[in-house]
């Protein structure tokens, strides 16, 4: 079909939402991923047979097998005829039957209530209660959404916080490094991203001084209203200490900031030194008056951790200490939504896994142990779900990259993909201190995959260093 001239088109860059078009964030995922997709063309000789993609926090893509229990429950819900006969264990059937009863018309094909299936929300609230050592959790403060990113940005919380017509513009503090979709969604809403720098020398710790520096940098530029924290971190896989969390909460209270606690990697904590403490729990432990007043939204998902069910798109947000009048509007906003039902089924399993005595428990325990024992190498870079090591690139490589019009770490990652068939993300995509370069990869992979990755990386790195010596 012929193209009309640019000036006649409606959808020219001039005439569409500038906030959408004005992004100057160069996410290079697309060229990288599309190259990766074309990699499997026959007749192209490579030293590897398959590309290993660990650029995303996507365990299944990286080779982790889904949890059988959850898939059996999904199967029984999708095709109840499966429950006739002995193919499925008793606890699978019971779970599926219980969940189907919570669906309108007994089918996973019906719309769920806007906030999510009430019985599943109840299960989520009980999970939170147990996780946080008994601190009350109220189901009416919980909304199930098509993924945590949806809850944060697409439909709700940020949308409520960000007044796109305000002058000065709304600011949201975000860490550096930070996942690009968070920044992109902020700017698309008309907010200003206000960076605070995590401290690499201290294991990517969050230091309150940097939060103050961030606020100072915002003076005259925007009006910061919220502080976005991701704990455990992405891409830098740190886990905040209780002390640190409480310092952040005090800071937020003092500076009147709404806390956005992205805790989707809370189940990816392994290593004796680290323990995940939720923001809600830390807040409650501080006690009144802060525990009654600091406003907090915390996010979790079925996409990470043991489940890794990213493709099902289900997460939830818990809202704490919000003004009831505002909650009324949030409720309205959510009413246009409907979360995928299969994902909610998976979420139910996540918050309510097989228990000792259940027929499916032994297998569940085995898989759980396996995931939680992946710990190799430097504790600094392997807390949480990601590694974000620094790479020291020789000047010749940096020069070559510039000639190709690429950031040095992007250049490194592209070569790594082409020559070794391993897909990482370059630190450029997340932000880093000027003059430093990093690579990011997800470590939620089977042990043998991780071994293969490290082997290929090591070979590639030596060759790369030799080439640019």
């Amino acid at each position: 079909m012929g193209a009309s001239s640019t000036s006649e088109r409606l959808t020219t860059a001039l005439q569409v939402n500038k906030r959408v078009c004005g992004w100057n964030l160069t996410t290079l995922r697309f060229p990288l991923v599309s190259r990766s997709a074309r990699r499997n063309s026959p007749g192209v000789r490579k030293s590897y047979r398959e590309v290993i993609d660990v650029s995303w926090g996507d365990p299944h893509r990286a080779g982790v097998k889904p949890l059988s229990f959850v898939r059996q429950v999904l199967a029984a819900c999708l095709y109840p005829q499966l429950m006739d006969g002995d193919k499925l264990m008793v606890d699978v059937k019971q779970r599926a039957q219980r969940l189907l009863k919570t669906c309108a018309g007994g089918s996973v094909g019906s719309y769920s209530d806007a906030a999510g299936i009430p019985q599943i929300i109840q299960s989520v609230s009980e999970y939170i209660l147990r996780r946080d050592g008994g601190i009350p959790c109220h189901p009416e403060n919980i909304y199930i959404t098509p993924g945590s990113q949806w809850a944060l940005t697409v439909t709700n919380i940020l949308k409520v916080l960000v007044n796109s017509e305000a002058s000065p513009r709304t600011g949201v503090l975000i860490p550096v490094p930070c996942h690009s979709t968070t920044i992109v969604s902020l700017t698309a809403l008309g907010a200003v991203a206000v960076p605070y720098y995590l401290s690499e020398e201290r294991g990517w710790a969050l230091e309150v001084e940097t939060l103050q520096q961030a606020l100072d940098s915002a003076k005259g530029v925007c009006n910061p209203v919220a502080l976005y924290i991701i704990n455990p971190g992405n891409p830098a896989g740190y886990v905040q200490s209780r002390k640190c969390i409480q310092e952040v909460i005090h800071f937020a209270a003092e500076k009147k900031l709404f806390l956005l606690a992205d805790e989707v990697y809370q189940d990816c904590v392994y290593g004796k030194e680290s323990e995940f403490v939720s923001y809600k729990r830390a807040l409650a432990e501080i006690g009144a008056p802060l525990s009654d007043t600091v406003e907090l939204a915390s996010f979790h998902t079925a996409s990470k951790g043991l489940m890794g069910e990213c493709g099902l798109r289900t997460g939830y947000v818990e809202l704490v200490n919000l003004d009831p009048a505002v909650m009324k509007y949030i409720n309205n906003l959510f009413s246009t939504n409907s979360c995928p039902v299969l994902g909610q089924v998976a979420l139910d399993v996540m918050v309510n896994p097989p228990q000792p005595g259940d027929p499916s428990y032994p297998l569940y325990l085995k898989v759980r142990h396996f995931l939680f024992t992946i710990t190799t190498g430097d504790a600094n870079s392997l807390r949480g779900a990601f590694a974000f090591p620094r790479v020291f690139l020789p000047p010749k490589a940096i020069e070559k990259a510039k000639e190709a019009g690429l950031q040095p770490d992007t250049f490194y990652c592209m070569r790594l993909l082409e020559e070794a068939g391993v897909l990482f993300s370059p630190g450029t995509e997340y932000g880093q201190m000027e003059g430093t370069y990093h690579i990011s990869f997800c470590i939620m992979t089977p042990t043998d995959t991780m071994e293969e990755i490290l082997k290929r990386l090591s070979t590639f790195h030596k060759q790369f260093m030799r080439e640019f010596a």
Partner: protein
Amino acid sequence: MSQQAVNGVSCRGKVLTVENMNPNVKRVEYAVRGPIVQRAVQIEKELREGVKKPFTEVIKANIGDAQAMGQRPITFFRQVLVLCSYPELLEDNKFPEDAKKRARRILDACGGHSIGAYSASQGIECIRQDVARYIERRDGGIPSNPDNIYLSTGASDAIVTILKLLVCGEGRDRTGVMISIPQYPLYSAALADLAAVQINYYLDEDNCWSLNVAELKRALNEAKQHCKPRVLCIINPGNPTGQVQSRQCIEDVIQFAKEEHLFLMADEVYQDNVYAEGCKFHSFKKVLFEMGPEYSSTVEMASFHSTSKCYMGECGFRGGYMEVINMDPEVKAQLTKLVSVRLCPPVPGQALLDLVVNPPQPDEPSYTLFTKERTAVLATLAEKARLTEEIFNEVPGITCNPVQGAMYTFPRITLPQKAIDKAKAEGKVPDMFYCMKLLEEEGICLVPGSGFGQKDGTFHFRMTILPPTEKLKVVLQKIRDFHLRFTNEFS
């Protein structure tokens, strides 16, 4: 943390207040799940607690959810989906080969061969290719490029995304979006949220809810004075009105869009739900291309489809797609970026969509059963559409246009003046007052016409035709009896 504190009752010194929150969010309303539904849910709770009512169940005829009302899913679809979810079943000889073949193909396209992996944000490529081929077959061979297909989380996701892209400008240059009255309130909610200017064009109730260009022109010209009209939305078959636009009408709309330089959004989620004699679904794209290159190479358009309606009724999977036509390539690149923010649409929904566009063929084992089930669903809907129109038109004070397509009826109700006055005295919109009373007295949940928009001084309600036939007959009867009682009470 005190109970009150968890609910944030103590409001002194809040960071996020009604005064400083995004003002656009305050304007968002969605009648389909609004106050009347909230009351219905409350009544259900009361019934469970043993409170005595004049009825034993609440019939939720407010939402277009077929399976909630007992419609069975299509066997073939569920078979493929279960094979995708639990691939061990591929060894089970109880499942037909054509289902296994499709499941394997879908799993091969998934990261790690799992539906639990993220897909590309635009959707799994081979599924987009299948969607493009489906569109080509449907539209008599007119080419469809898979790169122009975006899979989405239900059609709603795609609709809101396009609106996000198109709404811009300040003050008098603010984007105006033309939407039919009555309309499906997702549109008005999205427009409120985006602070776009809503431009209402009225469908003609006396002529079977038809669209006429004179009315489009009137609405546009008035709107030009205070905004920049750039988008025209049309739902065909219609929601809530069920009208199926004639081919001529679609041509007229395209012509109008071209002349007035408007982006067309064609919501076609009910494309298989066509019942009335003489009515046929014509896709906007097909008509556009049949109008020749002067139109097909210039008019910018997005058309939307979903797995929630038609004969599938799989609302809970959140499957859907849009096809964009003639979009500026640079803007399209930004659209691609925009959809990446929500990462990807649910993979089971994408898989389901693949089956909808790639159903069993005559030479395949599942064909007979599939066709039988599909035909039965659509035939039942057609019968219920006819029945609804017939019964409502027998009631003095209720006038019902033929339900030509979709899943709803939107009859006009005459309310006595005394009732209108009583409603106003109670601070209620008259048709909400009527519907609430119906809910309390009969346990039937409908959505008042005010939630969709209607001509001033007229009142309507939207009811779905989804309850099983026998139950539907009872519902129709109860509404009839209620209406007569109501009219009597307020005469």
